[in-house]
C-alpha cells in the first residue's frame, strides 16, 4: 500500500516542483474532461496551451491578462506571508476602477489628457483601492473582525456600487441606456506597447510591482518584520514588531496594487467603466499567488499559466463550442492539485506491505 512518510526536513526541491506537478495534473485532467465532453483532447489542449502563444497577438493578450493577475497576486502574497487572510482583491480592483474611472470622467473634456492626467487617474485608482482595503484593516484593527469575511462581503458591495454609478450618475448619456460610462478619449488611455494590440503600459507597471514586491519581501527590514509576524507571531511580539502595523501595511499595499489593476483595466483594455470590469481576476489571483509560492517572481510565472487558462476559455468557446466557464474548472483544479502536491514537500510516498 502507498503510505505517506514524514520527511526529516521539508523538501526545497518539491516546493519548486509541486506547482509544475500541479500544472501537469491539471493538463491531464483537462484532457480527460475534453474527452468526456466528446472533443478531441489534443485539440482541446492545443486551444489552451498552443493557440495563445502561436503569434505576437496571442502573447500580447497574455500580457493583458497577466497584468491584473500579477498585481492582485503580489498583494495576496504579502498578506498571506504575514498571515492576513484577505480574499477581497476583486473588490479592491473594482474600487480602483471606480476611483480611476471617476477621476477620468471628471477630467476628460475630449481633447485634453496626456501623461499628467493619466498619472492623476492612476493615483486616484490606487487611493480608492487602498481606501477599500482600509475598511477591512480598520474593522480588524478596531473590532477584531474576521478579515476573510469582511473583505469578501466588500467585493459584493464594490460591484453593486459600480453598478449603481454606471446606471445612475455616471451613465453614458449617448449609451442607449446601457449600464456603462462613456468611452474615455484617447488622451486618457494608457499607451500601448505593441501597436494595434491591447498590451499597454500597465504590463510594465505590473512587472515593476513584482520586482518591487520581491525587494520588499526579501531585501527590506519592513518585509522581514511582516514575515516574522506571519510565521512566528510570538517571536514577532517579543522582538517588538507591531502586529497592527503589519495589518495596515499589508492591506494597504494589496489595496494599492489591486486598485492599480482596476485602473489599468479601466483606462487600458476596457477604456470605459462597464458592469464587469474583471472576469474574476481578484479571485484567480489567489490561485496565482499560491501557485507562485507567494513569491513575486514565482507569481510572474503562475500568472502566465492563469492567463493561458483565461484565453483558452475564450478560444474554447469560439473554436470548440464549449462554454467559457471551463476556465473556472481549470482554475479550481489547479489549486486543488497544488495543495495536494504540496503534501510531498513534508512527506514522501513509500510502498509498505
Amino acid at each position: 500500500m502507498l503510505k505517506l512518510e514524514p520527511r526529516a526536513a521539508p523538501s526545497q526541491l518539491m516546493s519548486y516542483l509541486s506547482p509544475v506537478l500541479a500544472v501537469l495534473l491539471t493538463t491531464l485532467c483537462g484532457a480527460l474532461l475534453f474527452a468526456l465532453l466528446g472533443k478531441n483532447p489534443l485539440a482541446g489542449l492545443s486551444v489552451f496551451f498552443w493557440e495563445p502563444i502561436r503569434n505576437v497577438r496571442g502573447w500580447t493578450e497574455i500580457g493583458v491578462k497577466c497584468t491584473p493577475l500579477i498585481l492582485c497576486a503580489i498583494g495576496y502574497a504579502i498578506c498571506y506571508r504575514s498571515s492576513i487572510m484577505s480574499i477581497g482583491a476583486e473588490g479592491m480592483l473594482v474600487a480602483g476602477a471606480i476611483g480611476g474611472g471617476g477621476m477620468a470622467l471628471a477630467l476628460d473634456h475630449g481633447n485634453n489628457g496626456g501623461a499628467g492626467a493619466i498619472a492623476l487617474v492612476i493615483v486616484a485608482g490606487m487611493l480608492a483601492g487602498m481606501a477599500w482595503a482600509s475598511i477591512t484593516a480598520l474593522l480588524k484593527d478596531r473590532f477584531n473582525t474576521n478579515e476573510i469575511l469582511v473583505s469578501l462581503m466588500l467585493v459584493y458591495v464594490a460591484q453593486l456600487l459600480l453598478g449603481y454609478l454606471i446606471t445612475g450618475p455616471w451613465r453614458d448619456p449617448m449609451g442607449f441606456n446601457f449600464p456603462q460610462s462613456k468611452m474615455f478619449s484617447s488622451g486618457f488611455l494608457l499607451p500601448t506597447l505593441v501597436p494595434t494590440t491591447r498590451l499597454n503600459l500597465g504590463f510594465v507597471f505590473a512587472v515593476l510591482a513584482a520586482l518591487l514586491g520581491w525587494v520588499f519581501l526579501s531585501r527590506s527590514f519592513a518585509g522581514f518584520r511582516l514575515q516574522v509576524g506571519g510565521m512566528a507571531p510570538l517571536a514577532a511580539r517579543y522582538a517588538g514588531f507591531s502586529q497592527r502595523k503589519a495589518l495596515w501595511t499589508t492591506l494597504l499595499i494589496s489595496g494599492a496594487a489591486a486598485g492599480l489593476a482596476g485602473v489599468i483595466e479601466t483606462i487600458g483594455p476596457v477604456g470605459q467603466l462597464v458592469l464587469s470590469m474583471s472576469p474574476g481576476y481578484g479571485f484567480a489571483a489567489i490561485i496565482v499567488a499560491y501557485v507562485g509560492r507567494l513569491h513575486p517572481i514565482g507569481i510572474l510565472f503562475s500568472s502566465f499559466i492563469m492567463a493561458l487558462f483565461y484565453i483558452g476559455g475564450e478560444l474554447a468557446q469560439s473554436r470548440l463550442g464549449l462554454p467559457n466557464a471551463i476556465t473556472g474548472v481549470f482554475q479550481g483544479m489547479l489549486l486543488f492539485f497544488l495543495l495536494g502536491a504540496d503534501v510531498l514537500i513534508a512527506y514522501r510516498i513509500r510502498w509498505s506491505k
Partner: protein
Amino acid sequence: MDTFLLLLAPALAATINAGTPLMLAAFGLLVNEKAGVLNLGAEGMMLLAAISGFAVTVGTGSATLGFIAGALGGMAAAAFFAVMVLWLNTNQYATGLALSIFGAGLSAFVGIPYTGISLKSTSMAIPVLSKIPFVGPVLFNHHPMVYIALVLCATLAWFLNHSRTGLVLRAAGESPESAHALGYNVRMIRLAAILFGGACCGLAGAYLALVYTPLWQEGMTAGKGWIALALTTFACWKPWRVVAGALLFGGVTILQLNLQGLGVAVPSQIMAMLPYVATIVVLALISRNPDWIRLNIPASLGKNFNPNSA
C-alpha cells in the same frame, strides 16, 4: 391596521423563506467548526448542490429527489475537502477557498443547459393551522424543508450539549490531542462532521435552486455561503442563535426587496448592498467584545490534527 397586517404577513413569511437556506448551511458549518474544521468552501458546496438538485428535479420532476441529490452533491464536495484536509494535511483555509473557486467554476460549466428553466414554486400548507389568520400564512404555509430545518436545530442543540457523541465531537474541536489520547479517532469524527456540513450546505443550495428562486443561475448563491460562515460566529456557535441570525439576515434581504417594491427612492443597487453591509456590521459588533468569541470559539478551529505525529 388590517392593511398593515395584510402587508406584514407575506413579508414575514418571505423572511422565513429567505432565512431557511442560511440556517441550513450555518447548521452544517457550525457542526464542522465545533469539530475544529473551518470549511471556507461553503459557497462552492452550495453552488454544486444547487445545480445537482436543480438538474435532478428538472429531469425527474421530483423536488424530494432534488433535495437528496443536493445533499449528496454537497457531501461529495465535502468528502473531497475532507480527504485533502484530514489525510493530506492541507491548509484548511486554502483548501476551502479552492473548493469555493472550483465549485463556482464547475457549477457554472455544467449548469449552462439549465439556465433559463424555472420550476414551479412549492410550498405545503399545513391543514387547519395555515387557516389561522395572520399566524397561518406566516408560519404554516412553507416548504417542508423549513420545518425540517427547525427540527434539525432542536436536534443539534440537544446533540451538541446533551449527548455523549456531541461531547466527543466538541472535544475533537477543542483539544484533538486529548480526544486522541483518550482513544477517540479524531480523523473519523472530523470526517463525519465535514460530511454532515456538506449535506447541510447541500440542502441549503438545493433549497435556493428549488424553492427560493426557483431557477438556476450561475453564481446564484451570491455570497450566501459566506454569510452562513459569518452566522456561526454571530451565533457564538449556538444553534438557536443561528436561527435568530438567519431570520435577521433573511429579514434584511426581504426588507431590501420590499422597499424596492414600494418604490422607495433609493437605487436598487444601494438597497442590494444591505445584506452584505449588515453582515459586516454584525460581525464587527459581535467581534468587538473579544471575550464573547474567546469563550465560545472551538479552541482548535482551523488547526489540522495529524494522529501520526501526535
